[in-house]
């Protein structure tokens, strides 16, 4: 038999838990809906920089035959989904205050990474992409520089 005190305690604890869970869900929704600022732009650029570096690493490993072509293609395919998401995020980002030169510089680089990662899926695409792996390193370096500029603002 539960006492009144036990029932109140149980109710209080349940309320605390529910409030915590609602706060968690609400905060996640809020995070995803917030308008973009320079910080969000920097995050987006950093994501693309990491993806360009990862693609370069995958292609270089394929060129050195330390991974098999099936792995390289499949990994590029998985990476392509993340690249497309990051590229779309950057494209649709309305940064406040506006930073047109930075966004204008980053957008074509995002397109370049997306093209390269999708090209790996084409017949003979892996070989030609692997030969051009160094290009992705340059893209990553340029994004790195943009990221540093945004960080030091």
């Amino acid at each position, binding site marked *: 038999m539960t006492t009144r005190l036990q029932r109140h305690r*149980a109710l209080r604890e349940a309320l605390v*838990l529910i409030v915590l869970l609602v706060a968690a869900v609400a*905060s996640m929704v809020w995070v995803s809906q917030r308008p973009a600022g320079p910080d969000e732009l920097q*995050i987006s650029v950093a994501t693309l920089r990491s993806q360009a570096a990862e693609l370069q*690493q995958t292609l270089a490993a394929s060129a050195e035959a330390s*991974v098999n072509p099936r792995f390289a293609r499949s990994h590029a395919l998985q990476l392509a*989904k993340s690249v497309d998401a990051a590229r779309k995020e950057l494209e649709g980002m309305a940064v406040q205050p506006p930073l047109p030169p930075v966004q204008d510089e980053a957008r074509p680089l995002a397109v370049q990474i997306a093209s390269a990662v999708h090209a790996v899926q084409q017949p003979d695409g892996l070989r030609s992409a692997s030969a051009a792996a160094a290009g992705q390193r340059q893209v990553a370096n340029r994004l790195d520089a943009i990221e540093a500029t945004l960080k030091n603002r």
Partner: protein
Amino acid sequence: MGKAAELFLGILTAMGGFVEIGELTFTLDGGAHFGYQLLWVTALGTLGIMVYCEMAGRVAAVKRRPVFSLIRERNGFTAALATLLAANIVNLLTCTAEIGGVALIWQLMSGWPYRALLVAAMAFFLLVVWFMPFEWIERVFGLGGLLMIVFIAAVWTMGPDWGEMAAGFVPRPPQVQGPRDGLLYAYFAVALMSSIMLPYETYFYASGGIEDDWKPSDISLNRFVVIVGFGLGALLSVALVAIGAEFFGPHRIEPQLPGTAALAAAAQFGKLGLFIALLGMFFAFAGAAIETALSGAYNLAQFAGWPWGKYKKPREAGRFSLTWIAAFVVGTLVVMSGIDPVKVVEYSIVFSVVVLPFTYFPVLMVANDRRIMGEHANGLLAKVLGWFFLVAITVTALAAIPLFILTHGGRG
């Protein structure tokens, strides 16, 4: 089986089952961002999971009482119901992420379409859990997960700065670039702690002890397996932090995919290293998928007082069996909808932190209680460590959501 062989296999199984997809991504990413500076969190989290799994295992051995039965008794029906819902949401999220992780690994190995592999993974899990005895599930996936030792070997061949690595085990103010980086460091500390102390491990460990028919005479075995097995398992986490620091950090890569982790093994050992790493990750993720699905079923059955256990025929524990089947089916449908399993990992880790204090508090209370546990109640050391970690995870739980917001979901 002899005691020594049982002990040896128990240790290896605990070690091999230590890492899952959440821990893999957070440790690698944490290492890439902050070098060795987060190693002390790995050590602290490992000690925490040792303390609470040992307690839960001891309670299971002495009283044959699983964690959720204690939660209901100690927290009352309503709060226990809320804990059950939260815990099983976390279990389902983690299971979903692991199923997605297995399909990603299979895709890397076969090149086959991801969605078809998700369906294959679901069928694989249903068949394995239906037909394999509990002991075999533990051993096969735990021992298979040991293939991840390839990451320890990879670190060894990378020739890391051992002094810097050792210094990482000492907590100190982080060397970061500005307050935003400081917040990100705190977020990674919270996420790492949570990924190591995931609540399903305690639910599964205690329920597994009952499945394995532990008795008070098995308390020493429980203690030894937890300390040595999890301690060795933590070496895998340390190796993953080191790979993040030595390989991905300098290449400016923030690893998010299982294939990215495999690249580090391939860079050291070529195709053989790649294959072993992929196979090790498959066993580790698959083991975690099964443990989370079973944990969800254990929790619900223990809360509701239904017959439960893998040692029972599925028909004898029908509602229990239906629950784990539902976990695999729902988890697969969630990732089939196109949701990124890596994103699911992030949410499951943040939710887990919030659930941790509600899971561990009743375990500590029962293990402390001499009237219930008799001579096997917590001694001074276990009490001090138990309270220390309860405070630590409560602070972590309170900090998790604000940090998640301030760091844009851990992105920067």
